[in-house]
């Protein structure tokens, strides 16, 4: 599998990463090297091996359903560049 310049541009857009036109080839090269590695791994016969979703051989720890967090709005809002009426303000999104 090999990524084209168009693939790189699309992936960058999806990941919201800014890539200059002059960088596309270099990024494609690097990513294609990674894909080379993936190709090698895909060549290994994994029939009957369960896919690993996490490297730790443990199960998830669970917590009790208890409200343990106080209202921290003022502290949290203080981190945001713009707020109003208790809301975070962001550039207008219209769908």
């Amino acid at each position, binding site marked *: 599998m090999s990524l084209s310049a168009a693939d790189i541009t699309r992936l960058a857009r999806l990941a919201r990463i800014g890539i200059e036109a002059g960088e596309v080839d270099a990024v494609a090269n690097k990513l294609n090297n990674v894909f080379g590695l993936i190709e090698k791994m895909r060549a290994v016969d994994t029939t009957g091996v369960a896919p690993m979703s*996490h490297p730790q051989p443990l*199960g998830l720890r669970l917590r009790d359903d*208890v409200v343990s*967090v106080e209202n921290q709005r003022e502290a949290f809002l203080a981190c945001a560049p713009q707020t109003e009426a208790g809301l975070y303000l962001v550039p207008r999104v219209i769908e």
Partner: protein
Amino acid sequence: MKWEVVIGLEVHAQLSTHSKIFSGASTAFGAEPNTQTAAVDIALPGVLPVMNRVALQKAIRFGLAIGAKINQTSVFARKNYFYPDLPKGYQISQLDLPIVEGGEITITVGEAEKTVRLTRAHLEEDAGKSLHEDFHGMTGIDLNRAGTPLLEIVSEPDMRSAAEAVAYARALHGLVTWLGICDGNMQEGSFRVDANVSVRPQGQEAFGTRREIKNLNSFRFLEQAINYEIQWQIETLEDGGRVQQATVLFDPDSGETRLMRTKEDAHDYRYFPDPDLLPMKISDQEVAAIQAELPELPSQMKARFVEQYAVSSYDAALLTANLEIARFFEAIVAEQVEGKLAANWLNGEFAARLNREEKTLADSPINPVRFALLLRRISDNTLSSKLAKQVFDAMWSSELSADDIIERDGLKQVSDVGAIEKLVEEAIAANPKAVEEFRAGKEKALNALAGQVMKASKGKANPAQVQEILRQKLA
């Protein structure tokens, strides 16, 4: 051409927990914006999610109730997309190993029963809320809802009409509230429905191209939206057009669906297992413990009602549509009322009355004990069903018992043979024409005479007795 409609539903049911799925912030509805958020919910760097045990248990409870497979290993995945009400840049959801797989729900449409298969149900977190009112050209973000536990319940494309889709959504709504895993409040967004709709020529095996109607928050809108969409798709195809795969929104004001996005700009979510969360390992003992706590399910209760109280399957389905009505019915029957009579009244007069006044059972001014007395007065022939309706009306707007109203308004049915005989004789004497007609074989004429007797008794004569005595006298 004859078209067949194919519908599958995705339902987001908010699991009724106190705290969020991955943080200790409250999930209570209606708080001031951003007062119920933890560092995890607003995605501060370096914080880690910790899973809520009750959310998992409620998901398993649902799976067991629909006869599904509970995956012993279940994995959380990141669903990546960018939107300001999703501060992490991904939603924690499930892809390959959802907690619940398979299962089925039986629905009743009219008199017919049908089984709808479920594909899966998975755990995920809700996003926050974007407020698009004008904040100086900006959008306001409230993250109180971010991290609220959801169970996304996905059906197979087994439904063939809007009526079936609504019946399924209602059955599912009844079940999740019955199980106590979701409060079912649709106005508050606790139960949201997305409908995948397509049409295909009758007899064709391949599915048509589907469009997904997003975020329907009432059964009425669900029905309207699907019916509009079906009509639109059929018209488009019959005009020689093509249906493009797309996501659409329903506008309740116009009753139409409108395009939100097409497949070309569909999200590419780039799912992968969330490295912050280990796989959930669910033991047989845990599942058995939840199984042991399952209440009697609607389908089981329905079968029992048919068996124990001799009500029809149709009535039993209505009486088990939700736990409140089922309990109400059983509370009435417990007061020495015949099941069939209670079912007729609850599904008939009572349901119609609630409907007309847009009330729910919780608002009913008549409790089961008062209701039971009214029904017993029908069984013991104190009241005809017509008089009973009159008493019912009076009970609706007062706190008096049926007996008080019967006494006050003198509504006691007259079953005294002598009194009825007298009225019958008068009616026969006054209506020679009807008598002649009846004797000539015209059955209807008897009803006219009976009507005269009822009228003379001010509706209080026992109608069955009136008929009987009339026949005796005219024989």
